[in-house]
């Protein structure tokens, strides 16, 4: 286990002190990197937060292992996220003067990229979920967290049969939207 695994644990355990330590040690480096690549300080902090949330989700996969320094990994995740953001903003003039910062000495980058792609897929699914109607979102969110659907039906003022019917409809709607999404289309989903 890499000695920097402690930073991953801070995120997994939602350790307040540990998270502040992460900010003290790495925030400025991320912000400098974003600033040097057409971003503002606010962009830098936004990217940092989103990347730390992504790392938290990646770390929850059983096969995830930190094989480089946390800093190298964090900068890699931030860089990828920022490049995606720039693409969204249609600002493709990205400098690469400091690309050596992202050089990782072993072949762990491939494994990291696989985990990152998985988390990106989840992020997009969550974005698509947010485009459904409020009722559908509520039904799906509650049914995914709790298995007790009779209780959910009662709390929503619905019959169990109607809840099941609505849940099927909502999941089917979500499936159709996912199928039509450019990301999933591109990945043959």
């Amino acid at each position, binding site marked *: 286990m890499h000695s920097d695994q402690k930073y991953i644990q801070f995120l997994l355990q939602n350790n307040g002190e540990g998270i502040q330590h992460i900010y003290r040690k790495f925030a400025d480096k991320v912000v400098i990197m974003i600033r040097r690549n057409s971003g503002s300080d606010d962009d830098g902090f936004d990217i940092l937060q989103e990347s730390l949330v992504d790392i938290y989700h990646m770390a929850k996969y059983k096969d995830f292992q930190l094989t480089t320094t946390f800093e190298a990994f964090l900068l890699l995740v931030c860089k990828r996220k920022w490049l995606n953001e720039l693409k969204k903003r249609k600002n493709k003039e990205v400098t690469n003067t400091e690309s050596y910062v992202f050089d990782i000495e072993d072949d762990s980058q491939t494994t990291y990229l696989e985990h990152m792609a998985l988390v990106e897929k989840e992020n997009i699914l*969550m974005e698509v979920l947010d485009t459904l109607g409020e009722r559908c979102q509520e039904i799906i969110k509650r049914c995914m967290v709790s298995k007790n659907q009779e209780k959910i039906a009662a709390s929503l003022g619905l019959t169990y049969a109607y809840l099941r019917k609505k849940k099927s409809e909502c*999941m089917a709607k979500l499936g159709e939207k996912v199928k039509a999404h450019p990301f999933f289309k591109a990945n043959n989903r």
Partner: protein
Amino acid sequence: MKPKDELIQDYIDKVLSAEDKELFDTLYESDNEFRNAVKRQIEMTDLLTRRLSSEEEALRANLTEAETKHRTGKVISWKQWLTPLIAAACILIVVKFVFFPSDKALYELPEMRSEIVRGSQNNEADQYEDAVKAFNDKDYQKSTRILMQLHRADNTILQYQFYLGLSLIGEKKFDDAQMSLLPIAEGESVFQQEANYYLGIALVELGQTEQAKERLSNIDPSAKIYEKAKKLLDSIK
């Protein structure tokens, strides 16, 4: 007949009746679209369950708090301490000029060595020599431009990257200098000790005194730059 959506959901929730199970199996065998819809919905269910069961919201609350502390900590302290800081700085400057010799030498950049570097070809060597001349003439804008080109062309030659860092210090681009020197300071090359020293200088200039102290303290006592580092460390303590 039950709609396909409900069949799929019942299958995933494991509440299919025997009759519906038969219909489900038939469709799964014969209908490619149905089969894909089942696979997609199973995957979506797994991802949603995973994501929605996580404690992301609580984590975000702590991340936001840490960010606020990190950012406001800097701003507030800067504003709060501005007046006394200016006063203290004035006193220090007076005391320094009256009682102590200048420590300007500690911040001076070394001479850039003229030499043919590993693996160089004529054009590259010429460019390097141009950078040497510009650097030693303190035309840092020019030396930065040349060294950046050289570094981009071959980022395995740490000598380019090291002098690029120094040249950026000469241009007072301390953020950039920090990014250039950091990987060398954390590596194991012959430039490691000096990179730590000049990284320390960049950090001092950026106001990150604690990190500068940490860098300077890490310099090996056997290094040539050690005595200078000790003096710089004393001057910022």
